């Protein structure tokens, strides 16, 4: 714990801290471009110069200088001021003065820092360097003349994403950042380089020239594109959400966001259900709310009702639907739309118990039936970190490229009962061993075998729980906490032959099995369920309502409403409340506050932000055995996994171009 003096104030800094970190601890702002806490130190922008004694009598790059005992650091001296002005002037030599037409304008590090630390005018009269644009795919727009060579994007691709595709070609003034042969950046986290870019060299292509940052209303929300519950910020103007950016939450998404979660945004304004529809003579016709509720009342299902929750719905919606079902006398609730029917009697057995941050400490990991990069992209970066610290990773299931060394043990689940020596040795010696079960494993009924594995290798020990299940739907854990699970899965609902099926945005269900039921679809997109529905009641997407989400590690998080739902669409709970009136029953709440209070009264964990406690892991069922071959992973197209994503032109293009190799002609600008 070295003691240093920053601008005359003595403080103790953690061992291994850099001078820059010491200055930050002292509350001093150090300007920087290349330095980023989550990336390796490059030290090439020189903006963080400070004066350090003892040392050479010249300014030093604080980001790359370790803080040592007795250092006297000055960030306010004349030398530092001059050094910063000098660096700023050099950086601006080749930087175009195109801030008025640059998308980064208003949220640009270079702009802000040149105002704060620059000289105000340039003494440079020569020609500026110009660099040709580079193609980086449908998500990243490049204006490489603006690049200041900080190499954050290069380091992100290599270190965090693990996909070496961006590099710095040539040298010196002619250095250029490019992907190899200007191929599209095709991995699932590629758009994070847009956030990392301190200037306007890499900007968002779909968002180009859409808005200025100061026009936008910022709303805190939760990503629904996967079950990780990444913390996001919705930037909206008027009635439209224009972009989605990640927020910092070290426990969940650090500060990254998957491309799917980020670019789902333009799906929010397309293919929307903005008025009620009724099926008359086999055809959907537009209707009014009054007609729609009349039609619902006419179904008169009695207690023969089933509710299917979709992947994107919040806990409040599911709770309201549960109350409605309960008031009608039905407990047929299910959220696992594709037919999974694993045992949910103990939620600890279907939870990601290690926590997303905790899995970084694991030293042996067995992944069973999960293509993690598609199912939970930001979990893969955590596993990458674990591997960098020395963890061994084994995978049961078809081959995929994890971006870190991993041993594939074949597709056959039987290997769980007959582990190769290599695996049992690794797990026997591991301090923090973990297993991760994915959707493909749950589908094959491997949950019991996973629990048996956990018992065999003592995965739950002092301060460590290594048993993990990774879900793919943002509504899953919340749904399970609210009882959206039948013993036989959705098969039980089919067998019950309900008169009325309420679909809460359930777009992945095979509705042909409900041919005899009246299907009331409360959803926001004209997707698969809308085609099967008899009554469509237009609802709000995640951005248009307050809601509670529980992520795959059991973390309760709240999202806020950014904009109003389009047209006649209403928030889901109000629709369910009105349906109760139409069906002549009482659900016991008249406002959102009452609804939330009732929900928290029933499931107290939903009222507390943070990890829910599901208790101890259950014992493995006796004789649990996994068998069967994992033929494939549930996600076939990582860009089009839900109704919003399927409606997004950006993600459609990503899917066509990056996954299916279609080429798109570039319009000349």
């Amino acid at each position: 714990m070295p003691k240093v003096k920053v601008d005359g104030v003595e403080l103790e800094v953690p061992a291994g801290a850099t001078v820059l970190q010491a200055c930050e601890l002292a509350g001093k702002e150090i300007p920087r471009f290349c330095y980023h806490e989550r990336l390796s130190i490059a030290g090439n922008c020189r903006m963080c110069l400070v004066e350090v004694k003892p040392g050479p009598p010249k300014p030093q790059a604080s980001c790359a200088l370790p803080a040592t005992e007795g250092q006297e650091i000055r960030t306010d001296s004349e030398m530092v001021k001059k050094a910063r002005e000098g660096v700023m002037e050099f950086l601006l030599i080749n930087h175009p003065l195109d801030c008025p037409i640059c998308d980064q304008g208003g949220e640009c590090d270079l702009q802000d820092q040149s105002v704060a630390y620059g000289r105000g005018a340039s003494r440079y009269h020569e020609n500026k360097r110009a660099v040709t644009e580079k193609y980086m795919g449908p998500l990243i727009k490049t204006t490489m003349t603006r690049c200041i060579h900080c190499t954050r994007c290069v380091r992100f691709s290599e270190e965090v994403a693990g996909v070496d595709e961006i590099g710095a070609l040539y040298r010196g003034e002619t250095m250029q950042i490019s992907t190899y042969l200007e191929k599209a950046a095709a991995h699932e986290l590629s758009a994070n380089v847009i956030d990392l870019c301190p200037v306007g060299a890499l900007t968002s292509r779909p968002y180009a020239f859409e808005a200025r940052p100061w026009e936008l209303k910022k709303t805190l929300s939760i990503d629904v594109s996967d079950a990780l519950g990444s913390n996001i910020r919705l930037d909206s103007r008027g009635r439209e959400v224009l972009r989605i950016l990640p927020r910092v939450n070290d426990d969940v998404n650090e500060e990254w966001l998957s491309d799917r979660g980020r670019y789902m945004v333009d799906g929010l304004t397309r293919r929307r259900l903005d008025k009620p529809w009724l099926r008359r003579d086999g055809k959907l016709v537009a209707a009014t709310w009054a007609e729609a509720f009349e039609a619902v009342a006419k179904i008169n299902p009695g207690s023969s009702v089933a509710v299917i929750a979709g992947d994107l719905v919040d806990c409040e919606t599911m709770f309201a639907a549960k109350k409605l079902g309960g008031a009608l006398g039905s407990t047929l609730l299910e959220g696992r739309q594709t037919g999974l029917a694993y045992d949910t009697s103990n939620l600890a057995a279907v939870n990601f118990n290690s926590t997303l941050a905790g899995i970084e400490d694991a030293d042996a990991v067995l992944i069973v039936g999960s293509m993690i990069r598609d199912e939970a992209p930001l979990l893969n970066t955590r596993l990458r970190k674990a591997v960098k610290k020395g963890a061994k990773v084994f995978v049961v299931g078809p081959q995929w490229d994890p971006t870190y060394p991993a041993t594939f043990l074949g597709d056959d689940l039987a290997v769980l009962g007959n582990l190769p020596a290599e695996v049992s040795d690794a797990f026997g010696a591991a301090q923090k061993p973990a297993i991760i079960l994915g959707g493909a494993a749950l589908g094959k009924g491997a949950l019991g075998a996973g629990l048996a594995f956990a018992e065999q290798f003592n995965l739950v020990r002092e301060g460590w729980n290594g048993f993990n299940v990774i879900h793919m739907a943002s509504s899953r854990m919340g749904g399970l906490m609210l009882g959206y699970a039948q013993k036989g899965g959705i098969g039980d609902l089919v067998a019950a032959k309900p008169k009325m099926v309420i679909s809460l945005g359930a777009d992945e269900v095979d509705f042909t099995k409900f041919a005899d039921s009246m299907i009331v679809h409360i959803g926001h997109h004209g997707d698969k369920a809308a085609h099967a529905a008899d009554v469509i009641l237009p609802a709000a997407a995640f951005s248009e309502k307050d809601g509670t989400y529980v992520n795959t590690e059991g973390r309760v998080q709240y999202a806020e409403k950014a904009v109003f739902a389009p047209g006649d669409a209403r928030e889901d709970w109000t629709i369910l409340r009105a349906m109760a009136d139409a069906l002549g029953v009482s659900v016991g709440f008249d406002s959102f506050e009452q609804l939330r209070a009732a929900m928290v009264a029933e499931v107290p964990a939903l009222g507390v932000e943070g990890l829910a406690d599901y208790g101890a892991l259950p014992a493995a069922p006796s004789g649990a055995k996994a068998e069967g071959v994992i033929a494939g992973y549930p996600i076939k197209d990582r860009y089009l996994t839900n109704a919003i994503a399927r409606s997004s032109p950006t993600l459609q293009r990503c899917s066509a171009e990056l996954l299916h190799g279609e080429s798109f002609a570039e319009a000349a600008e």
Partner: protein
Amino acid sequence: MADRFIEPDSPELRARWGAFAWTAENAEQAKVIVGRYPAGRQRSAVMPLLDLAQRQVGAELNTQGWLPIPVMEYVAKYLDMPVIRVVEVATFYTMYNIAPIGRFHVQVCGTTPCMLRGSDDIMAACKGKGLKKGHTTADGMFTLTEVECMGNCASAPMVQINDDNYEDLTAADMERILDELAAGKQPKTGTQLPGRHTVEPAGALSNLTAMVDANHDYRGEW
């Protein structure tokens, strides 16, 4: 520094170089080079292997050799490393040629010491022989580049042609060297001054004269 740009990827390039592989001799050599580094650190060998590949391409084309994209990909695959990292190295160091080049790569130093000692004349001599900066002559014999300091300031002016240096040049020397190379002869390398061997003082000593015969302590005289 002259602008260098990577030769664009094209079907013709792929057709010509797509099947690039080490010759038997170079395969041996490559193994030796990779063997110099610890196991798992094989990508450290990227620089010598790129040089080897460039020489092999040169031998095939009877030029100084260059690195087409498929060859860089071959090296990347050989070392099990991302291609972009190989391209970064190849584009950074100017001794890797990233575009086709002539039989002899004439690199004339134009930095201050050479300039003071007459590199402009050397340049003019090259120009007189039909060489043009940044271009290859029509017969594919010479490529001319102006480069920065090559560290031969004591025997300036100098040029580097392929692996050899020619120092203490005059315009006439330069013309003779180019003629001899074009004629397939190997000119004398190193200094062109008669009686000079390396960079020892040309002619008589101009300073430290007291040290000619025995060691002399100058410190008292400072």
